[in-house]
């Protein structure tokens, strides 16, 4: 075989190494599974790393209860196929308080995602949690280690990260502390797509164009996924040929108009994009450093 491994081969090898390192050194790891394309790639890599054994950790979905219906169906199918335990955690305090994406914006995200995540990690005493974040997503992500140390309160201290030298990851922690581990750190959005194509990785259908009911809101196409969608005065859902570049809570995730129904078309569209991937997520745009602040509080 050629001594020159392809770019994707190298990325894959690095990710497999990271998965195994956690399995070998951490007491009670878990994989955060958010059902999106990055999660799908991460799950595929995890299965590869341990084949023929199933990955030696469960999947955790921190559910805001506002995901697309297609996502829930897909999640349950994939977990069963991988032979992995699926833990679904909903922050019941947020539900009881009636938090929703329409009225509570950033606070809703903080409670249902960040606080929900911390609750779930604490409840199960996980000491390492895999996340699908990539360094090309956002500026503070670009600064994060692959093995990201978190304090007992799940805080991230960007000024004091552990040096990460060669492939030697320091996984030592004290009781109550934890690591967030990012096996996809060095992948770009385009790498993700080309790898999905190469490996034929199944995805939620929402990534591909179809006629779907949407409304235009704050210059974004928002899909009307169920009857909980709150329509503004004058808003009438219309059928549009759309797809999603990124998947989150449906009322907060903007779609793009697209006719790309195959992976090849999606990749070509991605290459020609003039907006970055997270441009479609209302929640990331509040302030330049909002992602960093959320991470300091314990967000992924």
């Amino acid at each position, binding site marked *: 075989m050629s001594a020159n491994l392809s770019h994707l081969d190298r990325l894959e090898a690095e990710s497999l190494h990271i998965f195994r390192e956690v399995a070998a050194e951490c007491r009670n790891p878990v994989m955060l599974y958010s059902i999106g394309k990055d999660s799908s790639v991460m799950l595929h890599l995890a299965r*590869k*790393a*341990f084949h023929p054994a199933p990955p030696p950790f469960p999947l955790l979905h921190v559910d805001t209860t506002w995901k697309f219906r297609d996502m829930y169906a897909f999640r349950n199918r994939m977990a069963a196929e991988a032979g992995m335990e699926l833990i679904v955690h909903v922050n019941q305090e947020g539900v009881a308080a009636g938090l929703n994406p329409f009225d509570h914006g950033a606070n809703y995200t903080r409670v249902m995602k960040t606080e929900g995540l911390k609750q779930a990690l604490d409840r199960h005493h996980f000491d390492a949690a895999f996340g699908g974040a990539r360094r090309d997503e956002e*500026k503070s992500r670009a600064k994060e280690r692959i093995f990201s140390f978190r304090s007992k309160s799940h805080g991230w201290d960007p000024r004091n990260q552990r040096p990460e030298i060669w492939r030697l990851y320091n996984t030592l922690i004290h009781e109550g502390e934890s690591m967030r581990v990012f096996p996809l750190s*060095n992948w770009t959005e385009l790498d993700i797509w*080309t790898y999905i194509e190469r490996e034929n990785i199944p995805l939620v259908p929402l990534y591909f164009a179809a006629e779907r009911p949407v409304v235009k809101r704050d210059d974004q196409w928002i899909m009307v996924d169920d009857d909980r969608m709150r329509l503004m005065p004058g808003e009438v859902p219309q059928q549009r040929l759309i797809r999603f570049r990124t998947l989150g809570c449906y009322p907060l995730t903007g779609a793009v108009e697209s006719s790309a129904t195959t992976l090849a078309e999606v990749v070509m569209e991605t290459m020609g994009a003039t907006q970055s991937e997270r441009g479609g997520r209302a929640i990331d745009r509040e302030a330049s450093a909002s992602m960093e602040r959320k991470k300091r509080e314990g967000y992924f």
Partner: protein
Amino acid sequence: MQTLAGTLAAPDTLRVLTCGSVDDGKSTLIGRLLYDSKLLLQDQIADLERDSRRHGTTGGDIDFALLVDGLEAEREQGITIDVAWRFFATPRRRFIIADTPGHEQYTRNMATGASTAELAILLVDAEKGLSRQTRRHALICSLMGIKQVVLAVNKMDLVGYDEAVFEKIAADFAAFAERTRIESVTPIPLSAREGDNVTGPSPRLSWWKGPALLPFLEEAPSAPGLVETPLRFPVQWVCRPDHTFRGYAGTISSGRIAVGDEVVVAASGKKSRVTAIDIGENSLEEAVAGQSIMLRLADEVDIARGDVLVPAENRPEVTDQIAAHLVWMAEEPLLPGRPYWLKAANRMVSAQVSELKHHLSVDTLEETAGKVLELNEIGFANLSLAHPIAFDPYGENRETGGFILIDRFTHSTVAAGMVDFSLRRAANIHWQSLDVDRNARARLKNQKPTVLWFTGLSGAGKSTVANWVEKKLYAAGRHTITLDGDNVRHGLNRDLGFTDADRVENIRRVAETAKLMTDAGLIVLVSFISPFRSERQMARQLMMEGEFVEVFVDTPLDIAEKRDPKGLYAKARAGQLKNFTGIDSPYQVPENAEITVDTTSASPEELADEIIAYLRQKGRLS
């Protein structure tokens, strides 16, 4: 059918590091590279323009540094704190750029970026010339095995694009680099802020006949991979889903491996043959350095995580004594004798620096003596490991010659290490096998050897309590010995002072002595302040399971100071005694002492009874 992935694959990837002193324009350069190569998306440019108005340091113009300096603290201070990883591709090549901080305080983050880079762009401010930090970074690049350096002489706009200024800096650096292991230096004049000579030639630098930065990077040779180096396969994880399957997962550090190849386990020398190589569901005939695989062998050989599979005819050194360069990354200095965790290719062992041979001056590259290694210093040291592991010299194999040191209590990564060679001593000093062993000696005395380790502040009452315990043991017909801090300092340790480094060595010698005495079958009472957890832990690890009993003589500082039996607190307070524990030197309270005694509520004799009762309860005394 050709896949999209195949069509889109850029020819290869170059891993680049940008480094140099603070304010030399590293982040600006990367921002400029991305912007001028038209690699930014519309919303990113809009964000950049908005941020430049708010945080920019360039008047009304776009501040390119804000593209990469994404942390709040970085924007507030206008500096880079941590490595930013940037990925971009031109039609010719794919790049991974590690943009690293210039501040001396964050040198560890620069080393993080350097450890995987093939080429370094070392920035120099044309107005300021080479700085200490420029040299430090060049030296770290050299130690980390980066052979190619681009000396980017930046801010040429501020010196009127003067050729003489550039030539002087290039010559200064060439003279320095000649004495390092850097093999090729390419100086390029440019201005990141103005965009001169970044992606293409600039008329303002018309005297420059060499390449602009980006075209040079597109052409620069990749560092040779490790495929042609002998096979090293450190086992990372053993896969045993059921009794029919036993696989060894790991990343091939170097070389190649094929089905049918014979391999040996480096440490034990046991042999087997490769029967299968898999990645997920795919089977391969052969795999090479960099691939993460699952390997199966013909024989049921005892192999665990950390074992290294190698060719029989080309084995690494398996040693517990190495000489290595260290880049120290912690506020707390390296203390020879203190145990740290050493992590290398899937192995973690306890290790200590047995001798700090010299420091390497970043200004002159001279070797100077020193007892400790401070933050950001580079040193050369002998290390002693608790168990032998397989190493190659770093110069021959970056994957199997590098290690990190981790503090056992804070868990911080405190050093990056590069093995120069293994010390033959490991192979040449063998344990003398003796017929009368420790068990035999202990049996004759009809007792279990035990170390009672009394720790606490000066004046806490350690020696008083220890003395009572020994009197009672003696009366009961036990064979004992007491090692007292003051007494040992009159003899065995009289060459040692009271610096942190000397305190560590003091405890190391006493712990070794106590161990020899347990071999003799004795019950050993050690009465030492022993202020640091690390060293008490080291002593504990020298002894057998259950043999080490830590007794914390817990007396508050104000009471110990009031007692002041030797008048030492008074002297320390008067400034006549330096490094006195509790006053100007720390005492780390034990976290898991077997016994804690309170001298304020019971007499020394009562406390001695408590300790003896504990020994009986644990079966140490019959």
